């Protein structure tokens, strides 16, 4: 058995090297260490899985360094500025990379994509990787994730009559949470509105598209006013500790909440530890459809990377169908290539996989992208949504007034960055405008 593993490693090494033949020359030299900086897989357990399992078959040493977005951006930009590049491969969300493109810090990966020919990346993902250019490819898709609802099975008996758990509306979600509160005396719907939570993605990718059909243009529309009224109404059944929740898997496991919305990677521990206690379902739909946000993580190579050959080899390794399947099994990020889902997949991940499929296949599905083209202003853009939420829902300020003021703050960011509208908003000429 061991021999087969060795042989396959050697074979794939040889295949890889012939694939990269031009770069490596006729006598294959052993690859030096590759430095891989990533904003993803930051939790300690995920980073360990990356180092010990996902990268195990890679023929060279990989320094996998997960880093918060702030220091991540600073490090890459500072290295470019100083002309002393140490990082070879960069892994980040679509929205993490624009500052590097502005600074000319990333290589065009079109030639690498040609070498990866048979991977079958979805065309939409590659289009995103072009970052608005015609002929350059700045990142190769690495993995994807999304946000879903997870619920404790104990909550299912309180579903409102006539509600289908796989096709809920926001109205039914409210009714459901109200029923649970009536029965248990506790508020058991939860959102990740803590300091490191991803609540802003809920507004950007789920609530706004579901109610206004867009993320930006309808920010202060009458539909948005109605949306905030209804959300505020729903919030009375939300566990008030939600403003401290970062990862919903913990309150789900503790039983503090029974119904929770969060990122697949932040629900997975609950589903892995107690697969029999929970169910996974698509996010609710609103009047304009089921807004949802696919999250795409990409791999890029820095300009002047000290180990270019190793970097290309690493991307080749990570996008292999086998590696993608292992990545799914170990850290719960979904493949971006056609990969056979392994049979030994933990139940929790299979549950999420079904949820993801149901969500994107919903009749009214309305995929909504992470903000595009905001450069370094992505954080402040998120803050607009969070401030709106804090003012309207937590502090109870007047909805129309808050929306007017926050729309101005948002417009300022859009004007400064000249970002055109991105899906699901209709394309714009020039900066995207809040109507």
């Amino acid at each position, binding site marked *: 058995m061991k021999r087969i593993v060795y042989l396959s490693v050697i074979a794939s090494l040889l295949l890889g090297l012939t694939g990269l033949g031009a770069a490596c020359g006729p006598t294959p030299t052993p690859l030096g260490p590759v430095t891989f900086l990533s904003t993803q897989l930051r939790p300690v357990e995920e980073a360990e899985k990356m180092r010990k399992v996902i990268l195990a078959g890679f023929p060279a040493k990989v320094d996998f360094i997960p880093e*918060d*977005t*702030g220091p991540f*951006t600073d490090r890459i930009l500072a290295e470019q500025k100083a002309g002393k590049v140490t990082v070879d491969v960069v892994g980040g969300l679509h929205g993490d990379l624009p500052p590097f493109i502005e600074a000319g810090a990333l290589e065009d990966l079109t030639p690498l994509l040609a070498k990866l020919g048979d991977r079958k990346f979805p065309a939409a993902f590659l289009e995103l990787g072009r970052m608005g250019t015609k002929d350059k490819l700045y990142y190769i898709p690495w993995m994807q994730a999304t946000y879903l609802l997870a619920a404790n099975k104990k909550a299912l008996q309180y579903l409102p009559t006539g509600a289908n758990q796989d096709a809920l509306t926001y109205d039914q979600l409210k009714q459901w949470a109200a029923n649970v509160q009536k029965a248990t*005396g*506790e508020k058991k719907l939860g959102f990740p*509105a*803590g*300091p490191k939570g991803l609540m802003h993605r809920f507004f950007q990718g789920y609530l706004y598209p579901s109610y206004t059909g867009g993320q930006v243009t309808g920010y202060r529309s009458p539909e948005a006013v109605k949306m905030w009224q209804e959300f505020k109404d729903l919030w009375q059944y939300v*566990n*008030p*500790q939600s*403003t*401290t*929740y970062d990862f919903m898997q913990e309150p789900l496991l*503790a*039983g*503090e909440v029974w119904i929770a919305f969060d990122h697949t990677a932040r629900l997975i521990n609950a589903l892995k530890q107690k697969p029999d206690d929970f169910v996974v379902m698509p996010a609710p739909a609103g009047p304009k459809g089921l807004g949802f946000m696919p999250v795409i993580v990409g791999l890029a190579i820095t300009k002047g990377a000290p180990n270019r050959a190793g970097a290309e080899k690493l991307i080749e390794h990570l996008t292999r169908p086998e590696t993608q399947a292992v990545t799914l099994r170990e850290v719960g990020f979904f493949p971006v290539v056609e990969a056979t889902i392994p049979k030994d997949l933990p139940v929790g991940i299979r549950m999420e996989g079904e949820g993801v499929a149901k969500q994107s296949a919903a009749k009214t599905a309305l995929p909504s992208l992470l903000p595009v083209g905001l450069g*370094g*202003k*992505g*954080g*402040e853009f*998120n*803050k607009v949504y*969070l*401030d709106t939420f*804090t*003012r309207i829902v*937590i502090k109870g300020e007047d909805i129309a007034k808050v929306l007017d003021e926050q729309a101005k703050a948002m417009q300022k960011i859009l004007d400064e960055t000249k970002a055109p509208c991105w899906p699901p908003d209709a394309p714009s000429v020039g900066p995207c405008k809040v109507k």
Partner: protein
Amino acid sequence: MAQALLLAFQTPEGGFALGHVQQMAGDVAFKDALRNTILLILLIVPLQTTLALIMALLIQAGLRGSGLFLYIWTIPLGISDLAAGIVWLSIFTERGYLNSFLRDIGLIQRPIPILSYENPQGLFLAVAVAETWRATAIVMVILVAGLQMIPRDYVEAAEVFGPGLWQRVRYVILPLLRPSLQVALILRTILAFQVFAVVIALAGRVMPVLAGEAYFWYGSYRNPNVAAAYAVLILFISIANTVLYLRALRTREEEVAL
């Protein structure tokens, strides 16, 4: 520090303007952050100083086992502030130790959400308790050192005249302890302006504080300029505070002629 000043006041074109400071002052969280920070300091610094003084006097009194107490009381010194925040989170959270304990002894039927935005006073008190636990030790250590520097003669001389404990503390120990008190207060107040990990762990975004906002602006909103504006504000308040303490607790020359 110069870099922080530049970041806070420089415009992208290289000129100087108050744009970032205005952005900070106009922010939703700014007023709350300023108010919470100051209220927290007004509550915990006097509380900690009093507690630390009592603890230091107890240790100095040399009762049996006081060495052990010194060790126990200084344990929080070795714990990082975020870890301390998480420790207290596990106590105060809805399914935490406090609620479980109260339910086990039958005082409550179902857990009370203590750390809720609907309950700002409870949130504030939870943070104050955690901060007091975490940072009283540093004040105590300084005061213990200060007490040990007071020559025995003074205390013995005072004992000869037979005043009560309170009078000895008030007229002999406190005046002689003034330099240490000054150091302890300055250190503790400056550190209190920097508090944020405990607050973030317990209260999330609902109870903004100045240093926490600086952290969010730098790490989450990715605007180092506004973060620097917060840092500069904290710097100026800290300097003003230090000057205030130095003046208020000034030791006159004739007093130190020991």
